[in-house]
């Protein structure tokens, strides 16, 4: 038995969730564009403000969540604020949460939906150190006029071959939200990424 303090969620659940959702919608509609997500005073150890904000906005009792690399206090925080089932089985999760710097080999176990229902697929929140510097990528696909550049640091390089394989299964596949400490960028399954580090 240990004393556990659960950190607060949004100051204003209705308007904060609305604001964060619009930012995420904008990021999903314009893949690779970095949007700022702020407005939380504290988060569980290892969880970025951006990740926590997206969790508070989208998770609830209908969304099984699989946190990978996070501690018990993160699971308790998620269950307290979102009421979401916290699983250790990626196959059944609608959302995956990856702590910064984690190996992402397990990402392939998440559901990509079915041919008839490609929307019944997981969304992965992958924490990174920064979306302002690091590996340079060029993105193409719906939502992008010509080409979008993206810089990422703190992301397992195995991610990009995985993401290319994910792209090849379109319209099936997972969608990814890269979460820097206070910013996110989205990589929906439609996106083709080209960079110096693909498929060694």
């Amino acid at each position: 038995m240990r004393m556990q303090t659960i950190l607060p969620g949004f100051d204003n659940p209705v308007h904060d969730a609305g604001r964060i959702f619009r930012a995420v919608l904008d990021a999903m509609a314009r893949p690779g564009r970095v949007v700022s997500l702020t407005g939380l005073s504290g988060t569980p150890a290892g969880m970025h403000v951006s990740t926590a904000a997206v969790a508070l906005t989208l998770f609830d009792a209908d969304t099984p969540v699989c946190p990978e690399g996070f501690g018990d206090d993160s699971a308790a925080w998620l269950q307290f604020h979102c009421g979401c089932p916290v699983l250790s089985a990626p196959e059944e999760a609608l959302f995956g949460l990856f702590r910064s710097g984690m190996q992402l080999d397990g990402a392939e176990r998440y559901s990509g939906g079915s041919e008839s229902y490609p929307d019944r697929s997981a969304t992965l929140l992958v924490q990174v150190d920064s979306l302002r510097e690091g590996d340079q990528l060029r993105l193409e696909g719906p939502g992008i006029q010509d080409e979008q550049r993206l810089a990422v640091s703190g992301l397992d390089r195995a991610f990009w071959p995985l993401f290319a394989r994910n792209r090849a299964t379109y319209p099936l596949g997972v969608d990814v939200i890269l979460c820097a400490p206070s910013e996110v960028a989205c990589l929906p399954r439609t996106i083709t990424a080209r960079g110096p580090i693909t498929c060694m």
Partner: protein
Amino acid sequence: MQGHFISTATDNTSIGTAPQRTGRQAQEGGDSGYNFAFLDEQTKRMVRRALLKAVAIPGYQVPFASREMPMPYGWGTGGIQVTASVIKHDDVLKVIDQGADDTTNAVSIRSFFARTTGVATTESTAEATLVQTRHRIPEQPLREGQILVYQVPIPEPLRWVEPRETETRTMHAHEEYGVMHVKLYEDIARHGRIATSFDYPVLVAGRYVMSPSPIPKFDNPKMHDSPALQLFGAGREQRIYAIPPYTTVRSLDFEDFPFEVQQWDACCGLCGADDSYLDEIILDDAGGRMFVCSDSDHCRKRREAGHVGPMGGTTQTLEGSDNG
């Protein structure tokens, strides 16, 4: 006109171009007693998750648990649920019905959101951040950052050729769209041209055939590569779908019968526009008629800029006689 939110709504219909905010409604959350934008947060989360998947799979119809709204199906319950899940208190909302800001459906929905959110409303396409539409895309090109929400009655483009949902879902899964071309071909065989003039099917991002909702095919080219985000909500049919900005939207056609839009011999009677979508208005029993812009904001902006159509003096004469 006796819908219960219509009769009790305060007069928030903005006349003129400046976004308007009424004092009581400007407070955060709008009308007390309801959550911001009417829907509860649980419903909004469900709709929001559906919207994100819809954006990630352009043109694919995402099922969602559509709620009862305080208006009948067919009045835009799908569009309203999308708007309610997307709207923020600093948005500027425009609502149009067949292009016009001042028709019953548009006025009702605008006052519904003014009352339940307190957001500013406008009739100007340029000033709006969020536009909910029934059956038209504004003439003025949309810009980056704007969101266009369509009210959709029948989201399934294959429904007219295959009534079974299980079948159409499999046809989408297998990209089996030949039957759509057969339908268009039958038009040509019967009429000598593709006679479909509204709800003209499109192929989105090279994968999904999608219903653009009953917009005239005149508006189809505006969907292609639009800088704005386009969201579609069908309440009765419980479907949400989307087109991200800068996405390929191609109207289905044939090499020897290429897609083409409607054209008119006349121009707008009020503003003289010859490049906008025109409505025909019957003036009397003797065959008198005129054509006017369907987009009321576009028409007013043009008249304010000094453009006058062949019947452009008519309204002033009427106003003058009213005053006298």
